[in-house]
């Protein structure tokens, strides 16, 4: 039987649920990352299937776990950055046939099933539970944490992978056509790029609070600086380029007020984590990072794009869910790793959280203070998508590494890394996790 998406009930999407029933009883232990690539080079080992196998094996090695002891696999079957296999283009049979394939020849190339993984990892002999957390690593980790807490598995691999192919994405298909279906036309006829909604929210934010786009420069500079200290990241591996405020000011607009550096770079990469029970985690190689809560926003905007009011209402609601289930307050956060792809919405996330007492409209002023990893108020120490390329998981890896005290050159030094929060993607609609050095 094929693997199914986790039911919606697995996610903690409501307020008033109280403390998470499995608070502190599930832990992240191992981390495995593949190398990063801008686009697939056509080789089997660098296909999305190939890099996923690499990430999964590294996560088990990192944790010192025996593959036969793994009994769960939670992953996202969608791997696209926006790129799909072009219609009519011959299939890449050399890469396909380098692995054991499933019924879909593009499984492992432009998508990834749990069945493909299991067919190609014969060492995983004990898997009794597979499910999909569809969307992002943020979905998969929430699903995996709940599954382990509920006893559906005791040791899970959690996987998210991305493929990227040749060409500029979003430029073909319907976007190149003379006519589009009426349902998509209602939103798409005006030619708005993906960052448009965030750009409008940011424009309204600046109007309402008297802020300006140049006030984002310290955040961008900090994100790339942190990202260059993330050896697993794309920019550190391929293009070790800092972004200065001058670079930021000179960057071309995509949808003003969102410029090139406010957008992230699509890449190929895979990451896997090893999650297990707090009890079992004690016997593995790395220090356990305990999960205090997971939380979800499933809020639907009223119309085409969320207004600033809708954003602020929802980030505040999300924060209440995050804190309630974890039994903490904003004061307990050692640092934050909320999502940043687009950079222009990071402030919505951290204002909603009330990180360091921030209220709505205050984050851009906060960015003008010391937000670096050696100060008392670290902002996005992972560097996020802006610092490492688009994966939507650097934030989670960084929380685990920071709390394990093995973030290397990126290790926060101005605070003791005890409790952190990460998640996204959108300020309206996302999945979040609270990580802790101790189970209580």
């Amino acid at each position, binding site marked *: 039987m094929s693997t199914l998406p986790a039911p919606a009930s697995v996610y903690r999407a409501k307020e008033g649920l109280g403390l998470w029933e499995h608070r502190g009883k599930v832990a992240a232990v191992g981390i495995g990352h593949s190398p990063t690539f801008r686009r697939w080079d056509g080789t089997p080992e660098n296909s999305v299937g190939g890099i996923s196998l690499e990430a999964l094996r590294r996560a088990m090695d990192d944790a010192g776990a025996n593959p036969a002891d793994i009994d769960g696999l939670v992953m996202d079957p969608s791997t696209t950055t926006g790129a799909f296999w072009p219609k009519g283009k011959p299939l890449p049979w050399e890469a396909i046939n380098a692995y054991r394939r499933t019924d879909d020849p593009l499984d492992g190339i432009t998508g990834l099933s749990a069945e493909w993984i299991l067919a190609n990892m014969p060492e995983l002999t004990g898997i009794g539970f597979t499910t999909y957390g569809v969307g992002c690593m943020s979905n998969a980790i929430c699903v995996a944490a709940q599954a382990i807490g509920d006893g559906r598995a005791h040791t899970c691999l959690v996987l998210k992978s991305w493929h990227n192919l040749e060409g500029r994405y979003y430029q073909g298909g319907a976007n190149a056509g003379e006519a589009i279906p009426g349902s998509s036309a209602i939103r798409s006829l005006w030619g708005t790029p993906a960052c448009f909604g965030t750009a409008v929210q940011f*424009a309204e934010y600046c109007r309402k609070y008297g802020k300006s786009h140049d006030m984002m420069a310290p955040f961008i500079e900090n994100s790339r600086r942190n990202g260059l200290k993330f050896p697993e990241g794309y920019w550190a591996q391929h293009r070790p380029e800092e972004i200065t405020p001058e670079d930021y000011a000179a960057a071309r607009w995509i949808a003003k007020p969102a410029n090139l550096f406010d957008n992230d770079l699509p890449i190929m990469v895979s990451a896997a984590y090893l999650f297990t029970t707090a009890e079992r985690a004690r016997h593995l190689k790395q220090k356990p990072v305990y999960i205090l809560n997971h939380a979800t926003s499933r809020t639907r905007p009223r119309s085409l794009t969320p207004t600033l009011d809708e954003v602020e209402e929802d980030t505040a609601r999300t924060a209440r869910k995050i804190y309630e289930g974890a039994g903490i307050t904003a004061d307990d956060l050692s640092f934050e790793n909320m999502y940043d792809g687009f950079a222009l919405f990071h402030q919505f996330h951290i204002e909603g959280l009330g990180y360091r007492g921030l209220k709505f409209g205050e984050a851009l002023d906060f960015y003008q203070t010391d937000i670096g990893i050696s100060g008392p108020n670290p902002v996005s120490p992972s560097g996020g998508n802006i610092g490492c390329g688009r994966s939507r998981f650097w934030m989670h890896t960084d929380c685990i590494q920071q709390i394990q005290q093995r973030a290397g050159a990126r290790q926060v030094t101005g605070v003791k890394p005890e409790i952190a929060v990460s998640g996204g993607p959108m300020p309206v609609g996302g999945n979040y996790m609270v990580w802790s050095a101790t189970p209580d």
Partner: protein
Amino acid sequence: MPFARKRAVAVDRIIVVAFNAPFRLEDSGEGMKQGVDPDDLTRPFWEAANEHRLVIQNCAACDRLQHPPARSCHQCRFGDSLEWKEVSGRGRIYNYGVVHDCPIRLLQEDQPFNVAVIMLDDDPGIQMYSHLSGTPVDAVPVGADVEVVFEATANGQKVPEWRVVAQER
């Protein structure tokens, strides 16, 4: 040629193109929106646009407008009470962005261009996008009153667009 002027030409054309007149693509000129193929869900919206009327999906049970249209009401979850309601065609500019890197080939030569978010007077929770014909690039009067106009797309299907009628209230 600046985008705003070309857009004004496109809007003017709807006045001279008779309804139901055969539409030839070579008439479309530059900067036209992609054509629209109405589908089951949205056909009443597009048919009304061709008659220069703006209709929005409404749940009669909840007395609540919703846009984009959906198969069921997002509030009561039922689809039985959904109807199409004609609205005033007046609204207000919430805010805007200026598109410099557009994914749609037909619009790329017009870059950069405004895209404003319009909130309907009938219910400010309901939004529509607009290229704001006649408004210079990056000089959009946030908060200004707008009214609906109907513009022909590349296949002759008309689409609700908006123009500024008065500065901020």
